[in-house]
Each structure stands twice: as C-alpha cells, then as structure tokens.
C-alpha cells in the first residue's frame, strides 16, 4: 500500500439511476463469468427446445400454428421461471449465506438497488434466452412470425422475468441459504412440468391438467402461447379453452404481489431477528 494524501479530490456522484445502472452492469458481468449459471439459465432452455420442441417440426395445430412455434413459447416460459428461481432465488440466497446482504445493510448501497441489479441482470439473460430460442426456431424449426408477434413474444418473456422476480426473492429470503439450491430444484422442475412447458398439457393426466389451472406459471405460459398461437390452437395444446387474458394477467400479478409480500416479510423478520 502506498501513502495516502488527505487532500485527494472526491468526485460527487449523481442520482440513484446511475447507481442502479452500475449495479446491473456489475451483475451482468458477474453472470457472464459464471459459466454454470449461464449454461443453466440461458443455454439449457435453448437446448431443451432443440431436443423436445424441434423433432416435430413439420406438425401443425388445427388452426395452422406450427408446433415448433408453440414449443418455442413453452421453453421461453421455462427459461423465465428458471431465471426467477435460480437468479433471484438461489443466487441471492447464496450471497445472503455468504453475508453479502448483511454487509450491504451496514453500508450506503440500498438493498433495493441490489435487488434491482439482479432483476436487470435477469432481464438481460431473458433477452438472451428469447434471442436464442427465436434464432433456433427460425433457422431449424421453420418458425415464421410477423414482426409484431415477435415483439409481443419478446416483451411478454422479458416482462415475465420481472413478474416472477418476487417468487425468487421469496425463496431467497424464506429458505435457509444452504437449503435454497435444493428447494429451488424441488420447486422448479415439477412446476415447469405441471405448467405444461415440457409436454402439451392435453397429453398429461387429467389431474395435472386440472392442477395447472392453479399454477401462476401455467397462466404465464398461457400469455406466451397466446402471442404465437390462435385461441383454438392453445385449447388444443392445453386441453381446455383458454381463459380471458385478464384472468391470466391477474394470476401472474397476484403471484407477484403475494410473493413480494412474503419476501418483504421474510427480509424484515431477518433484520428484526438480527437487530434483536
């Protein structure tokens, strides 16, 4: 270490927006260094799409929607839930376990900025997942959609990450850090399966079809399928007529609020326990 002069000039910082932007940049850079995270969060949805979504490339639903387009939406929904559970859930829980969130609470970096950084990073990852699925769908699956449909598909996918962010935060703060990875995996795979992301719900047992109606992730899937398929083709996919868009939105929004409240309660409980 070299001697410090006490007269070094300090530069004034700007507003909170710049801090949030920097936090997002730092988190994106950290994600890019974490190969296992990138593979799990970005590459796996594209890989699963290639394995399960593309073999039936020539098939279409009754109204003419290509199966590859619908499966592209299914794996986009899978990718979003994966990001929510593993970025917000497991990653934040791990940093909580390492004491980083406690260190933060002693310093000037607000916790909401930290969480906003994670959300921003997940949005960037969701955009990468969307792009990867779209490129694969177009080049290999023969998916052809109007520009407006592509835009709607991308917008719903990215918005989904924000919508399910509180789900991950709830896992991160409700569960003991060491158990978070196990819980995340236990929650994630059954939730994706029962929501109809891997196989069309119409091909699953009726009990699972009935259960799906109560899963917010399934309702998010409905929103995504609606961007690429007609209502008739969505009905053929899930085995039941789709509800009104507002119903699906209400489920997703309600889940966002419920999980947000749970995460906030758990974070406050932790702070209160710590403060004694």
């Amino acid at each position, binding site marked *: *270490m*070299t*001697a*410090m*002069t*006490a*007269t*070094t*000039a*300090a*530069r*004034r*910082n700007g507003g909170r927006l*710049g*801090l949030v932007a*920097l*936090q997002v940049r*730092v988190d994106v*850079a*950290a*994600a890019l*260094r*974490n190969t296992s995270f990138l593979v799990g969060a970005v590459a796996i949805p594209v890989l699963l799409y290639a394995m399960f979504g593309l073999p039936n490339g020539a098939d279409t639903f009754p109204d003419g929607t290509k199966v590859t387009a619908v499966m592209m939406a299914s794996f986009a929904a899978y990718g979003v839930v994966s990001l929510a559970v593993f970025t917000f859930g497991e990653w934040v829980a*791990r*940093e909580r376990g*390492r*004491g*980083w*969130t*406690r*260190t933060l*609470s*002693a*310093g*000037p*970096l*607000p916790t909401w*900025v930290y969480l906003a950084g994670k959300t921003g990073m997940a949005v960037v990852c969701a955009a990468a997942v969307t792009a990867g699925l779209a490129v694969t769908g177009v080049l290999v699956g023969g998916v052809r959609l109007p520009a407006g449909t592509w835009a709607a598909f991308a917008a719903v996918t990215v918005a989904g990450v924000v919508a399910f962010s509180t789900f991950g935060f709830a896992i991160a703060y409700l569960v003991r850090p060491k158990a978070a990875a196990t819980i995340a995996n236990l929650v994630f795979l059954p939730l994706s399966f029962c929501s109809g992301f891997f196989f069309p719900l119409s091909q699953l047992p009726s009990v699972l079809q009935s259960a799906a109606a109560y899963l917010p992730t399934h309702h998010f899937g409905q929103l995504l399928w609606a961007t690429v398929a007609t209502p008739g083709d969505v009905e053929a996919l899930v085995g039941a007529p789709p509800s009104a868009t507002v119903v699906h939105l209400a489920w997703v929004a309600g889940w966002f609020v419920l999980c947000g409240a749970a995460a906030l309660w758990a974070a406050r409980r932790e702070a209160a326990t*710590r*403060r*004694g």
Partner: protein
Amino acid sequence: MTRSTDPGPRHLPSVLGMGHELPTEPTELAVELTGVTKRYGAVRAVDSLDLHVRHGEVVALLGPNGAGKSTTFELLLGLLRPTEGTVRVLGQTPGGGVRGRIGAMMQGAGLPEDVTVRELVRLIGRAYPSALDVDDVLRRTALTDRARRTVTDLSGGERQRLLLAAALVGVPELLLLDEPTAALDVASRRAFWEQARASVRGGATLLFTTHHLEEAFAEADRVVVLLAGRVVADAPPAELAATVGDADPENLEDAFLALTTGETR
C-alpha cells in the same frame, strides 16, 4: 482496580481516574453511546456502555474475545438495536442516511461472488454522495494488480485490503474498523495505518478494534478497554500503560491483562 460506574453524561467513564471532559457542543461528538445495553436473553453483550468519540479522534477499542467490541460496532452501524440506552452516530440515529457518511469494515464481512475488485470498489463508491477515483484507491491499498480478479480469487489479506478500499472510497467522515489489520502481514499493516492516518488528517474520525496492543497504543489518541460489555479503562495510551507501573511498550500486554483479568507480574 474497580469497575467503572456511570459518572453522568458529562464525563467519559474511566476506572483509572482519567475521565475526559466532554465537549459542550453535542455536535462535536462523532460517536455517542449513552447507557447502552444489548441483551441476548440473559447475556449482556454490552452492559450500560458509555462511549463518546469526538470528531477527528482516533480511538482504539480493546478487550478480550466476547468483550462486546463487535456488538458495539454493530450497534453503531444500525445492524443491532440497543435493548436500553441511546446510540447516535454523527448526530443521527444509526442506519438510514448516515450510512453514506460512514466507512466500515466488519469482522468476517461477506462479499459477492464473481465480482471483480475494481467493480466492487466502484459500485460501493458510487453509493456514497461522493467518491475517490477507483484506481487511486486501488493503488493506495495495493490492489492495482488484483483489480481484475474476482473476490473469490483473493487471499485473506487481499480481501482485507479490499474491505479497506471499500471503507475508504466514499471519503467517510467516520471510519468504523473492526479488527482491520487481522490477516495482514507486517508490511501491509504498516501501510494500512498510513492510509488510516491520512484519512484522519483529512478530517475523519476513527474508531477501531484490534488485538494488536502495540498498534492500539501507537495509533490511538485514546484507548478504551471493554470487559464483559463494560468500559474498564478509558485513557490516552501512555497514561494507561503507566497505571500498571510500567509504560514500556514491551509490557503493554501486562497492562492489558491487568485491566481485563487482574493479573500482574
């Protein structure tokens, strides 16, 4: 030797009869703990603690393990709330906006994964109202050649220097450093104190804990000794050493043991 009793709000407690007059203006105090008790069930981690630190002062908080030093720091950082008594930092209640005026190093502080040294220091600096140039801070903390390394790739001493860089980058008015030189080698420890002294010359107040008695006695204006959450001594280093009959720095441990265990040679 007797335990201190609360002499009232106008005096700093001292078992050695070396109580310090407090300044008349409360704003001259950077740290004020008045009658603070922190209980965990039947255990009193901090017990009726009175500790006041003036702006620009360098105060060392000494004590054996479990004496309440880290709890005191957590109270000052707003991580803990006192069971009784009042805590004020830079004239404000701990936590909230005052965090932007404090640079802190906590024992065993957690750091994020996959973030580089430069990114972390820059991010922390950006959270303060104003900040030093990141490259400058890294140079001063001997982390320039580690700037691109991720936190997980650092040695214990490098992590400690990173925590110091994070504490200094926001040009804080108050430095709260809990065992800042733990895990540092001799050269790094000396360099650390150059940094700390420079901050104090720049107007900062410094409250630190350490188990290195010689650095406490060499660097601090005042040494406060805690035992079982209470102040058992509060005096300038020379006076404190002299009270055990020997001001020889080599016998500082005797002074410390006499205060905290009653043992004398």
